[in-house]
């Protein structure tokens, strides 16, 4: 039998340090120039192409009725006039403040609702199918009953937003909870994270990616249903938001104003997504190593 002299302490540590160094992934951030070329240039190119085609339709007299298609410059003037008169930010703020407040309320209602449906079997069986069915119901359908219930006021607007956004947020959280790996729950339980502690320390953070995806969709639904509500429900006391601006343009046969409103609605929707939800989603995924690049 060969006698083997074994030493553990010093060698193990240094081998281990070497292994750690070898196996740790090297990562760096992509340079700014790359981001510029990859992410910024393509959408700008697309916008320029659309503007060129649009101007071409006007210049080549393919469409020459300004009540059907206004020229880009006419729409630009509509923007500039509202800006100079100080009304542009007012329109945007009226709608955005409504949208964000409504969305915040939807979050407060949708989160506990989603947790209940996700965790309590009876509640899931009772309202789970209705909740996912509600997602496919266009929330514009709620405008007429909301007007009857509340009249033409802000409560009616918020009702419509809530009915549009709550199902999305709750459903997102439910699917997030469903996708929590059972291993995490077992690991949590062996550490003593059971009941509410388990929900707070394990289930909720593990479900965060699905929850954020639900929020993102919930915002899109809030914004759409708010615009529908603003277009349909016109009342001087409600103030002029982007939906009203669009409707005002239509009644005045001012196509430039209609285009201005449509573009603003689009921009605000994109801006909120780019400024709030996309960074949130990227942060959640990146911190978990779920996002490459």
């Amino acid at each position, binding site marked *: 039998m060969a006698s083997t002299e074994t030493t553990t302490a010093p060698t193990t*540590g240094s081998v281990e340090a070497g292994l750690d160094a070898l196996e740790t992934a090297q990562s760096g951030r992509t340079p700014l120039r790359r981001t510029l070329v990859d992410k910024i240039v393509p959408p700008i190119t697309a916008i320029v192409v659309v503007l060129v085609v649009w101007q071409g339709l006007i210049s080549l007299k393919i469409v020459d009725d300004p009540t059907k298609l206004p020229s880009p410059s006419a729409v630009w003037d509509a923007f500039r006039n509202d800006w100079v008169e100080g009304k542009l930010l007012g329109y945007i703020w009226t709608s955005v403040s409504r949208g964000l407040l409504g969305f915040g309320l939807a979050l407060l209602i949708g989160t506990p609702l989603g947790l209940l449906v996700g965790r309590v079997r009876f509640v899931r069986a009772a309202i789970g199918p209705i909740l996912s069915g509600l997602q496919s119901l266009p929330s514009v359908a709620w405008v007429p009953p909301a007007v009857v219930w509340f009249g033409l006021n802000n409560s009616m607007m918020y009702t419509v937003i809530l009915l549009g956004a709550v199902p999305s947020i709750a459903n997102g959280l439910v699917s997030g909870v469903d996708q929590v790996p059972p291993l995490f729950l077992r690991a949590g339980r062996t550490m003593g994270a059971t009941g509410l502690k388990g929900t707070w320390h394990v289930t909720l953070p593990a479900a965060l990616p699905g929850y954020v995806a639900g929020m993102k969709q919930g915002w899109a639904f809030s914004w759409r249903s708010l615009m529908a509500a603003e277009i349909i429900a016109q009342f001087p006391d409600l103030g002029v938001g982007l939906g009203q601006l669009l409707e005002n343009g239509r009644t005045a046969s001012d196509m430039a104003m209609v285009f201005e409103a449509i573009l603003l609605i689009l921009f605000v929707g994109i801006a909120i997504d780019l400024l709030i939800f996309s960074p949130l989603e990227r942060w959640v995924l990146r911190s978990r190593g779920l996002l490459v690049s």
Partner: protein
Amino acid sequence: MAPTLTKAAPSVEYAARLEHVSKSFTGPAGQQLVLDDISLDVAPGEFVTLLGASGCGKSTLLNLVAGLDLPTAGSISTDGRPALMFQEHALFPWLTAGKNIELALKLRGVPKPERRDKAEELLELVRLKGAHGKRVHELSGGMRQRVALARALAQESGLLLMDEPFAALDAITRDVLHDELTRIWAETGLSVLFVTHNVREAVRLAQRVVLLSSRPGRVAREWEVEIPQPRRIEDAPVAELSLEITEVLRGEIRRHGQH
């Protein structure tokens, strides 16, 4: 390095005691007996490996000891709630390495001001000083298992259950982690119940190897391993005993092909 953990106080004469434990599951083929009349003691500070082929119910047994499931018959008592380490690291990816450990401390009721230092100490114990702020995905497989070990140690349970914790690692890393586990076990005085299907690993680590038969799982035989630590997996005595155990294990497996 000064041992940072208090030695497990021998308040009882065992870290885990299993008495006539049976477990059956109701499956498509009716009642299926997975574990049959298992009696086993793990003494305080003892390192026991449970060895067996597929279908011996090793993981089921650990789940029972961990309190994640209840036995169909028999009783299990442990000295406090055991810590459990899995084949997958099971670290929470939304927390940093250090915060994973701090969560275990928090759930144990360690006050906030002490958690940070305690987590640093545990990271140092598994030789990951400076990894506190690292995200789980930034660590290698071996480093993740060491953080998982540190998190399990943070529970300060007298008994550590390990469910094939090194099975998914490459051979080089596994060797190193065997050394580390032996060192930490000696430093902390923990009792360890370690499940594996790797005979040499079982012999390399344990003071006692318990062989389980398959379908249903029963204690087939036990070996006291008297080779002094530190051992290496290549050592001749380790290989010799492994060979002996492998023969018995193969005999157990062979019985299943005969009908």
